């Protein structure tokens, strides 16, 4: 697979010229002039505002990244740092347009049967330590990622049609990927797949220590990447400092090599409110994912910054019931309640009774969107306009419940209570994560809505991991409010949510066979869109999936928050997106409008 063998003659010539160029280039300091782009390098030109060189940007992170290793990074802060600023991929999804664009690969061709992707790489690129970027690095990355012993979290992304993809090198600038089955999402597969430097990591890989490599304590000279910034320093518990990558492969329309910033500093501020304080005091210049109240509080004050509401993101929150099969461990009480949950009219009634407008108003202060399906208005290409956006109607809910055989009787304290056909009062518990204030608020509003129907719902706050254990492992729960957010707008990113065999198919995870007819239907449609040839076919299939979800309501969709961010007025080229990373997706183009080389404190 990986040919560590001979370079072609061209390759040797290239290497020599590169070495010559490197020797002749003026030695640059971290803050000085970047090396001039040699003609042998094929840089990507980005359109947009031309900025000024210099400056240090400070951003706050909610938690410390766990690692700098793209293979094992699973948590959000690590991904934000690694994929946002330190690594590059072959094909990148532009966060603003939500479409793919060339990155390390300058062009690609798909074979007619959809099984082969031929990518042409840019010539002459180098890693942040000056070593050349070659096709062999890609082969190494794929091999390391697919190796089961590495336990890479990205491995599952590279398995298409049940088989891992394979890659071979055609020449120094062309690689061919072979898939086992056609992949509908196409080249989106490559987004987020960071290309690793073979020259630094191959030895570690052979020693089977790759998963432990590149911790936060890695020395700066042991790390190299293709992203706009490279590792400078890590201070435990406080900050991670990145410096400009002088070999970055993008330039602006005037030919200046990007990025403009000299340094990018990530401060670890665990508390959302502490982040607001730091932003106000000027210690950080960008702030991302604000809550609606903090956003309003900041908007009301003047401080040389401007706040933006980027519109609904991709996060969708929902209420779902336990639809799994009762097992031996299920108490008769729970089994009785699960009978209610399995009645589709019951779920539809609950959905009709929920006041989604109040949720958007009271939880998100109006900065959100009510949802009737999993695709939010922030998703530019996959929304289905045929899904009915039914307004809240208690009468409809009561009618549905009556049809389903529930009646209203006099309850314990004189209040009306809903009872089922066996005269048992309808009451159940709703699990929420104890640390998530927004979802607790949603659950409280739902609790009050259900009271109008005579249903007594108890809210049970539980520590997050225990909650997940109950929902996905032991199945000992009744109802739950959770939220999901994908990093890509494409439905293929959520296969495991909609497939009945998926682990994230929350209402009944990891089924051996689909439990209901409509779940069988959804499985078929999701497989269809996975392999379909073009966007129209995929959209038709996924629209159908959304309609089935709307008819059967396994998840009662609630609301989606807007992406609320802010930046100091001195930061230029600030265009927040609704896909992660919200403010740093174009970090290579951010610059400081006041005098260059000045870090704003």
């Amino acid at each position: 697979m990986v040919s560590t063998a001979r370079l072609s003659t061209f390759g040797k010539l290239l290497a020599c010229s590169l070495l010559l160029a490197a020797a002749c280039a003026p030695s640059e300091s971290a803050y000085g002039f970047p090396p001039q782009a040699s003609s042998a390098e094929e840089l990507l030109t980005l359109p947009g505002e031309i900025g000024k060189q210099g400056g240090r940007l400070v951003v706050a992170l909610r938690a410390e990244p766990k690692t700098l290793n793209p293979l094992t990074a699973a948590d959000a802060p690590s991904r934000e740092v690694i994929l946002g600023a330190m690594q590059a991929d072959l094909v990148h999804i532009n966060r603003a347009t939500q479409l793919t664009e060339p990155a390390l690969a300058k062009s690609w061709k798909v074979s007619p049967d959809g099984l082969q992707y031929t990518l042409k790489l840019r010539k002459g690129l180098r890693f942040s330590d000056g070593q050349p970027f070659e096709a062999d690095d890609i082969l190494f990355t794929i091999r390391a990622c697919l190796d089961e012993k590495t336990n890479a979290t990205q491995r599952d992304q590279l398995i298409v049609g049940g088989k891992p993809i394979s890659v071979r090198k055609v020449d120094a600038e062309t690689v061919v990927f072979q898939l086992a089955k056609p992949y509908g999402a196409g080249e989106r597969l490559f987004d987020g797949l960071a290309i690793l430097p073979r020259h630094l990591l191959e030895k570690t890989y052979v020693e089977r220590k790759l998963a432990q490599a590149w911790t936060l304590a890695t020395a700066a000279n042991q790390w190299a990447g293709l992203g706009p910034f490279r590792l400078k320093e890590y201070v435990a518990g406080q900050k991670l400092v990145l410096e400009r990558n002088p070999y970055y492969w993008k330039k602006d329309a005037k030919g200046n090599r990007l990025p403009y910033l000299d340094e990018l500093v990530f401060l670890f501020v665990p508390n959302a409110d502490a982040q607001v304080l730091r932003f106000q005091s000027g210690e950080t210049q960008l702030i991302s994912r604000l809550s609606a109240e903090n956003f309003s509080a900041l908007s009301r004050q003047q401080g040389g910054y401007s706040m933006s509401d980027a519109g609904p993101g991709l996060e969708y929150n929902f209420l779902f019931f336990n639809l799994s099969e009762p097992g031996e461990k299920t108490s008769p009480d729970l089994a009785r309640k699960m009978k209610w949950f399995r009645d589709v009219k019951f779920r539809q009634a609950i959905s009709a009774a929920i006041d989604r407008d109040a949720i958007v108003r009271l939880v998100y202060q109006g900065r959100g969107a009510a949802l009737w399906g999993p695709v939010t208005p922030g998703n530019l290409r996959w929304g289905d306009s045929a899904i009915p956006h039914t307004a809240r109607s208690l009468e409809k809910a009561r009618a549905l419940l009556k049809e389903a055989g529930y009646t209203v009787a006099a309850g314990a304290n004189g209040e009306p209570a809903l009872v089922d056909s066996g005269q048992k009062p309808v009451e159940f518990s709703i699990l929420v994560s104890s640390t998530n204030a927004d979802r607790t608020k949603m659950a409280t509003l739902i609790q009050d809505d259900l009271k109008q129907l005579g249903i007594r719902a108890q809210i049970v706050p539980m520590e997050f991991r225990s909650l997940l254990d109950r929902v996905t492992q032991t199945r000992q729960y009744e109802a739950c409010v959770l939220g999901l957010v994908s990093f890509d707008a494409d439905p293929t990113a959520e296969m495991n949510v909609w497939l009945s065999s998926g682990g994230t198919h929350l209402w009944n995870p990891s089924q051996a066979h689909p439990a209901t007819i409509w779940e069988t239907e959804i499985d078929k449609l999701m497989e269809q869109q996975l392999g379909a040839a073009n966007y129209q076919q995929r959209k038709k299939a996924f629209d159908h999936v959304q309609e089935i979800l709307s008819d059967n309501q396994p998840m009662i969709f609630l609301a989606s928050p807007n992406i609320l961010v802010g930046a100091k007025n001195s930061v230029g080229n600030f265009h927040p997106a609704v896909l992660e990373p919200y403010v740093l997706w174009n970090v290579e183009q951010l610059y400081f409008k006041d005098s260059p080389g000045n870090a704003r404190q």
Partner: protein
Amino acid sequence: MRYFLRRLTQAAFLLVGVSILTFLFSTLAPGNYFDEMRLNPQISPETAAALRAQYQLDRPLQVRYARWVNSLAHGELGFSFANNSPVAPLLWVRARNTLLLTLTATLISWALALTLGIWSAATLGRLPDRALSWATAALLVIPDLVLALGLLILAVRSGWFPAGGMSSVGIESFSPVQKFRDVAWHMALPVSALVLSAFPILVRHVRGAVAEVLEAPFLRAAASYGIRRRTLLYKYALRAAANPLISLFGFSVGALLSGSLLVEAVMSWPGLGPLLLEAILARDLYVVIGGVLCSTVFLVAGNFLADTLMYWADPRIRTGAPAK
């Protein structure tokens, strides 16, 4: 000598007991660190299970405990899943930061408590004493959290103090003097919060102890000999009143690592507290055990120190007479 040996063995048993119980507790709650991956559609359950197996989270309790003791012998304290590194280096750095804060706060609190307490006892019942009583009562009534938050708002509104953290962003380029000043400036608020919450109780105790001693006949005799008031108070009265204060001091030492958790969390000070809190929420088992053990070591050391000091300071204990 035998006494010390006995205390040491007791301390050792305590540490072992704490480690075992913490291990037990951690397995009571269902779920573990890798559960969070279940909610990520990109990662299949098999990968999560493989990771769990790799870190041996699926082995029985005894096996895990034995392996942990083994790593303890090697100077590491287990492995932190959340931070992807051995636990020991993590803990040292954070513990150092916490100690910087709490040592300063303890010294200041005690200095304040001693001076104000003695003054209060000397002017018992008169204006200074009453004013101090009211002030301490007011401080005692405010919960720690509200106190810390209040100071934080003060920082933001006035801009005199930084809103959190331990040092400014560009600290690497500062001269040593500037570095010292920068850290001191960042320390001002957390230390104030700690001092304001700790010294009211200390003052009351000092006042009580010294006031009782001031009634004693030997002091009245000394006064009648014409010994200066300051010498009377600080040299004679304080020493006689030292007994309960020493055990209090032992508790202060014992709480050096654990007492500042809330303040550190609110003020984003990178100490042991936020690390432990995060580790508990993330189910990072070995960090929690390591942190708890460190705190216990300090607790035991504090008690030990108190006992030793008392032994040295109070002759009644040395001669074996029944101590108060």
